[in-house]
């Protein structure tokens, strides 16, 4: 297990709810009151950990009042502009419960889904994700969303339908078992699936006060699209970069070779070379192709050199334990 630098001691809980205060946060005390109620009703002991940037102090002040009333609320401040992934990892490191729930600091689903998600994880799932049904949203958003989810859905092999929903419950250890960095916390369910973690969906209702009709700038979706493409590459080709760069490179260089061959044959037919700009195109394509293949080889080299560092598979169980003497 990783060190838990923020551990303040004291009793453990059933559930830790991590709230990354990142984008368009709502009033945090209201959020706490609304979302802690169903957990309390279901009989879980819990703690809310808010992870926030310093510039959200005007919002996090409200938490002091909750704390003064004896509510199990903690605040972690992350100094630099770390990504959501870092916030999640920081929170997981200070988590004192076997189950971790993530909850965006804005309204996505109704609170009732929280205990259902926790129950799924208690029932053996590694990760449970809320899946919002019937999303009410601006038409533009829905269309952009559909394109994105079509791509993401393909990556997940049709097993996930609302990857972007931030309301999730998981085993706390999962955060350190799944390779996470950059903005990929958003795609945690996809990465978890790839790690062989049992991932389930729980249908959830959209929160009635969820903001409607907000139109995202196209830039937001462009960023997401780039994220998804990056993820697509990583999921398919991390262990075999040459398959990707080699295929692209040899296709491009192949066209270049065909052009040069044609030009060369015509040269022997008596047509001069020096006034054929297409020769330039041929050379350009070949150099591009070679560059792509060379990049793929560098990738393979990095993969090979790090091969001894990690296990690339995860066991469900083994009988008898793989290393009885290693316990």
């Amino acid at each position, binding site marked *: 297990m990783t060190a838990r630098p923020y551990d303040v001691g004291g009793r453990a809980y059933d559930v830790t709810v991590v709230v990354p205060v990142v984008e368009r946060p709502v009033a945090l005390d209201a959020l706490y009151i609304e979302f802690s109620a169903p957990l309390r009703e279901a009989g879980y002991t819990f703690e809310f950990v808010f992870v926030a940037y310093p510039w959200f102090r005007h919002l996090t002040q409200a938490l002091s009042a909750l704390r003064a009333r004896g509510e199990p609320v903690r605040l972690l401040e992350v100094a630099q502009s770390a990504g959501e992934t870092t916030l999640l990892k920081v929170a997981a490191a200070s988590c004192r419960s076997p189950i971790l729930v993530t909850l965006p600091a804005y309204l996505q689903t109704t609170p009732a889904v929280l205990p259902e998600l926790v129950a799924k994880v208690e029932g053996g799932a590694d990760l449970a994700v809320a899946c919002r049904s019937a999303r009410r949203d601006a038409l533009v958003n829905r269309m952009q969303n559909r394109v994105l989810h079509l791509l993401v859905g393909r990556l997940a092999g049709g097993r996930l339908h609302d990857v972007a929903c931030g309301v999730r419950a998981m085993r706390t250890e999962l955060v350190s078992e799944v390779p996470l960095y950059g903005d990929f916390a958003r795609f945690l369910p996809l990465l978890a*699936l*790839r*790690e*062989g*973690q049992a991932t389930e969906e729980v249908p959830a209702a959209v929160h009635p006060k969820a903001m409607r009709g907000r139109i995202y700038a196209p830039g937001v979706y462009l960023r997401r699209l780039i994220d998804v493409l990056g993820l697509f590459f990583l999921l398919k080709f991390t*262990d*075999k970069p*040459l*398959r990707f760069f*080699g*295929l692209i490179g040899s296709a491009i260089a192949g066209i270049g070779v065909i052009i040069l061959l044609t030009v060369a044959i015509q040269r022997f037919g008596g047509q*001069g*070379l*020096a*006034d*054929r*700009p297409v*020769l*330039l195109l041929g*050379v*350009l394509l070949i*150099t591009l192709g*070679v*560059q792509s*293949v*060379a*990049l*793929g*080889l*560098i990738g*393979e*080299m*990095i*993969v*090979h*050199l*790090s*091969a*001894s*560092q990690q*296990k*690339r*598979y*995860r*066991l*469900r*169980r*083994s*009988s*008898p334990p*793989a*290393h009885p*003497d290693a316990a």
Partner: protein
Amino acid sequence: MSNRSMLSVVVPLYNEEESVGALVDAVREALGIERAWELVLVDDGSRDRTAAVARDLAARDDRVRLVELARNYGQTQAMQAGFDAARGDTVVSMDGDLQNDPADIPSLAAKLEEGYDLVAGYRLRRQDKLITRKVPSWVANRLIRAITGVQIRDNGCSLKAYRRSTLQHLHLYSDMHRFLPAVAAATTGARITEVPVRHHARRFGQSKYGLSRILKILADLLTITMIAWFRERPIVMFGLGAAGAFAAGIAFLAGSFAAAAELRESMANAYVFPAAALLCFMLACYLLMLGLIGEVAVWKAREREHLLPNVVERPL
């Protein structure tokens, strides 16, 4: 703690619910009671009842062990998981579809005892479809032999025996299991030989291969070649490429002078050669820089490991 004379048989299974019972029986019969052995079954996230059947078999015989992967990772990772779990000094890998015959295991193990690090089986009278299996396999083996220099007739045969000391240095990823002998030779200097083994027609289930393998094999071969020749000095490989590009650039420059002499009246068109030369020079620079990045990667990896690469102590 590894048992000195134990023999571990590692079998990756993917959707082999019908075969696995017969497989365990055949291994039991082939190995008998004369030497200590274990059979490590690896369930590679099968969608059928393979895991349940295997769990049952493992419960009834403590020489049979089962390792279940969390999802379907592919044959390479399944084999790696089996190797990691195996406790014997000699490890034998085998397909789970009964096309290999466990009766060949003792002869492989005996050959290993003669002082080899890896003994590969080659299939006599292979019982597979000609066009989709045998022809691609023949081409692939030719290529692998020519490029890696490891003289193994049948790289696709899973029935192989290894010394534990050799496996310890192998970290399989991607589809490396197909090139295991070449990788072992390149990274640990393994002494390799082969023995003939029997091959049976598939009795149950579906073959898990297709024709698209050839392209993938080509890419993998390029990787293996690089690993074999340049794993410590990538700048040499990229430098060779850069030298080639540089030579092409010089050739185009020479062409441009020749063309300038010839086309005195239409000099406007003679830009083609100098421009092509520039492109080639650019490629040369680019490759050199990539080579330097490669050096950085090797440097960083060696820094991390704090040890000499893959030293194997040979029994004398």
